């Protein structure tokens, strides 16, 4: 049923860039070190210190912005965003305000399950800034002590702000998945939400159909979403809640100040967060300690050169070259470049993209999951697996027996031929098969009668009997012969 409103969602994503050192000093960015061990006078904002830009961080950000089809500003500067918070040691965050280094890009999303049409989500801007530290609130035994860990302070963050182009929770999740995949392919971030290297805030409202036309409801910002699934659920919840609210209040955009709500992952609801009436004034101004950054056309071209094949292009190539379906290309591309490379090698060796795709997605990926390993650590390399697929293609064994062989190959490290030999699997001679079928037909007049009357599934019984006599018979071929012989009777 069509709902009487359109959901409007825009997302702000913060990603930590995978640099060795921080944005404005040379401290390590490694996650998980003991508190305040990855700090220096600069990143803890000690009096007298000065920031110096880490060019590697800027280059990673540039690469990402180019991959997001953004316009790159030839001249960009740093601004101070000023507010007081105990984990912000300077009393301001170095960010970019009115001249971000990139703007006006897009990311294309699609859904293999076809729940929405493929579309471009606009990117308003992507800018670079430093991360704050972490406050750890310890209220053990009523002590209410707060501690501060500044290891994270100064880690490079890329803030990517989308246009409000998403029209459903599913689209929001698809955007995040595609963005994460892109960032992973670019090796610019590990996108680990648990470790905080990818954080999402959402802005959502409704455009309600009324007799007087579309009416926008007040925008709500939703925070505290710790997984893509949480974003999806929060957006579903919030859209419903906004609809309820509209029906009760008829409040339009501008009637009330923007509200901030937090997602409660356990209770499955959003809750209003305390907010002040006046919007915070960050008193942005250009940071006089840093010089503006100029980006040349040559640098932009070099960034473009360094991108490699991006997920969207890769999916199209797999579909075109190996004849697989969008769903299958999506599963494999989403599993990472290593898996795709494995698939491509296998498909080229065995010459059957669909067969290779099935085996990679089912048996290979299941094994990786079970063993909790990456494709690079998987012992069965494409040439070995291809030998098994060839045996299937040649009718030496069926899929279910091949699966047993596969498991044994993985377990023992033996080749397909060795395992098949050990299990006595060999191709049965065609004449031998025909003889066997004649024997069975003679011995089972009732079943034959059933087959003759059109109950072709009755042949299954004969196949079962045949496999008892000779486990190597290929069930498909056997079935063909039986039906053929019965037909000639």
């Amino acid at each position, binding site marked *: 049923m069509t709902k009487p409103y359109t959901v409007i969602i825009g997302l702000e994503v913060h990603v930590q860039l995978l640099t060795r050192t921080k944005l404005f000093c040379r401290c390590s960015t490694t996650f998980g070190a003991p508190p305040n061990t990855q700090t220096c006078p600069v990143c803890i904002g000690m009096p*007298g210190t000065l920031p110096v830009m880490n060019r590697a961080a800027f280059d990673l950000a540039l690469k990402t912005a180019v991959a997001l089809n953004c316009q790159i500003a030839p001249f960009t500067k740093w601004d101070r965003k000023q507010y007081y918070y105990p984990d912000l040691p300077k009393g301001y965050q170095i960010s970019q305000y009115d001249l971000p280094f990139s703007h006006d890009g897009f990311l294309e999303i699609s859904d293999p399950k076809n729940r929405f049409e493929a579309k471009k989500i606009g990117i308003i801007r992507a800018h670079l800034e430093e991360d704050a530290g972490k406050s750890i609130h310890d209220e053990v035994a009523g002590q209410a002590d707060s501690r501060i860990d500044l290891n994270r302070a100064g880690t490079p963050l890329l803030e990517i702000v989308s246009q409000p182009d998403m029209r459903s929770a599913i689209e929001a999740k698809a955007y995040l998945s595609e963005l994460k995949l892109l960032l992973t392919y670019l090796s610019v971030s590990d996108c680990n939400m648990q470790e905080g290297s990818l954080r999402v805030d959402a802005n959502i409202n409704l455009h309600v159909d009324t007799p007087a036309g579309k009416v926008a409801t007040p925008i709500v910002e939703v925070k505290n979403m710790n997984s893509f699934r949480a974003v999806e659920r929060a957006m579903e919840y919030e859209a419903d809640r906004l609809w309820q609210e509209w029906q009760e209040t008829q409040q339009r955009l501008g009637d009330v100040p923007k509200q901030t709500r937090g997602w409660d992952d356990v209770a499955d609801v959003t809750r209003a967060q305390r907010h002040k009436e006046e919007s915070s004034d960050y008193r942005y101004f250009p940071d*006089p300690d840093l010089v503006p950054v100029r980006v040349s056309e040559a640098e932009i071209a070099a960034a473009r050169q360094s991108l490699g094949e991006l997920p969207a292009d890769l999916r199209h190539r797999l579909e075109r070259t190996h004849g697989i379906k969008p769903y299958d290309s999506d599963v494999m591309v989403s599993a990472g470049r290593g898996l795709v490379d494995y698939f491509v090698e296998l498909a080229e060796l065995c010459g059957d993209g669909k067969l290779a795709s099935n085996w990679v997605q089912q048996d290979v990926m299941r094994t990786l999951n079970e063993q909790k390993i990456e494709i690079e650590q998987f012992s069965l390399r494409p040439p070995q697996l291809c030998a098994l697929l060839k045996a299937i293609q040649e009718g030496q064994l069926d899929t279910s027996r091949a699966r047993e062989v596969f498991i044994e190959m993985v377990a023992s490290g033996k080749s397909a031929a060795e395992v098949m030999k050990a299990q006595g699997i060999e191709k049965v001679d065609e004449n031998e098969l025909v003889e066997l079928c004649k024997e069975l037909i003679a011995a089972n007049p009732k079943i034959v009668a059933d087959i003759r009357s059109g109950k072709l599934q009755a042949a299954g019984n004969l196949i079962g009997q045949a496999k008892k006599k000779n486990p190597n018979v290929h069930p498909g071929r056997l079935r063909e012969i039986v039906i053929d012989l019965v037909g000639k009777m």
Partner: protein
Amino acid sequence: MSLLRHSAVELLAQLASGQTTSVALTEAYLGQIKQHDPQVKAFLRVDPQRALDRAAEIDQRRRQGEPIGRLAGLPVAIKDLLCTQGEPTTCASKMLEHFKPPYDATVIARLKAADAVLIGKTNMDEFAMGGSTENSAYQKTANPWDLARIPGGSSGGSAACIAAGMAAMAVGSDTGGSIRQPAGLCGVTGLKPTYGRVSRYGLVAFASSLDQIGPLARTAEDAAQLLEVLAGHDPLDSTSVNIPVPKYSQTVKQPLKNLRLGLVREHFGQGLDGEVEAAVRQAVEVYRSLGATVKDVSLPHARFGVATYYIIAPCEASSNLARYDGVHYGHRTDEKELLAGLAAERTALEAAGRHAEVDALDNPLVRMYRQSRAEGFGPEVKRRIMLGTYALSAGYYDAYYLKALKVRRLIRKDFDDAFQDVDLIVGPVTATTAFKLGEKINDPLSMYLVDLYTVSANLAGIGGIAFPCGFSAAGLPIGLQLQAPPFEEERLLRAAHMFQQATDWHRRYPALVS
């Protein structure tokens, strides 16, 4: 002649020839400090033993023929806003009373590498905000020429200690005139380099786009020696400029031929003291006699200098000083008292039934910020933080900060235009000689106008030098200021040296230098 009356260059020669030792020299200055600093109050901290140990170590290295730095054994005083590793760096603020930086400022590292003896940290206006050194949280420095008068500021301690013969050279910083103005009022030579010439790393920031570190010394030759050590690109300061540092100490002695001086029309208007004007005009005649030509130039936007400065500097200061919140740095108010005070306020409000006010009470964190900053900063610092916070606020930014930036560009353009026709701009440093302690302390506006002739150089980012060109009838020094195009410190020093070769104002000493 007493060691105290020698220039640094003369002392370096005596050290090199073995005529004196660093220990003897350090003892002489320490003696002078001991005898007169209780009245002058130039120093916030002196560590005699440490200075003497360092002097002895350098003397020994010299005796043993080991390589030694270019300022080896020379006692140098440091303005107390330059970070010195493991030693207090207070910015003359209660806020940083207990701050001991774990690192050296780049200029301190350079001085140590040059084997200077760091004799002590000098007094200043709190966070360099002021023009009289009366804004120090610790003490008021006196002008060695008249102990009832101010030495200028904010580098008042550094200027006074040179005038009083308590150090061979001193390092200061200049945001709106804080080297040149006290140099002028104390009768010493002080140079504010071009923005970017000297690394600011380790200089506790007042206004980042205006601050610049520079030398204070007895003579232009001395200043050249010190600047050569201080200047140069620093990878830790991206605003420091990567261009070679001239050999100031060598070129300073070369007179400038066909020097073209510009006399700024706007500098000789209302408010300029007659004695100061006469001395400045007399100095210009000295230059004429040395072959210089003089012409009038105009800096039409100079009159907006002070107004522009008092927008930009407080804006940057309000941001730079945000880190002193009692969490990481600076004074933190007593926690028990704070919580007790809040609880008492709450009880009182509840008892009075004023529930709305109970809800509006600060949470303890916010109250800690407020109270720590209220206790840690002095009135002038608070005034500037408020000015800057206001000017950067939404709705005011364009009218104040952005407009000030535009005027700043016009002021720079004035200089660029003027330097089309002249090599240097010459004029007064201040409108009057040193005023009395306390005279302007309750009149911030007249205090701000003390920067009238100096702020424009900071706004334009160009260099300037101040040195004595006469004395008033009351015996107070009168300063002359030269300003040069960007990165022409060499020209400033050579011109000042020419003057000092022809005059002896810089070799006059207050009575307390025997």
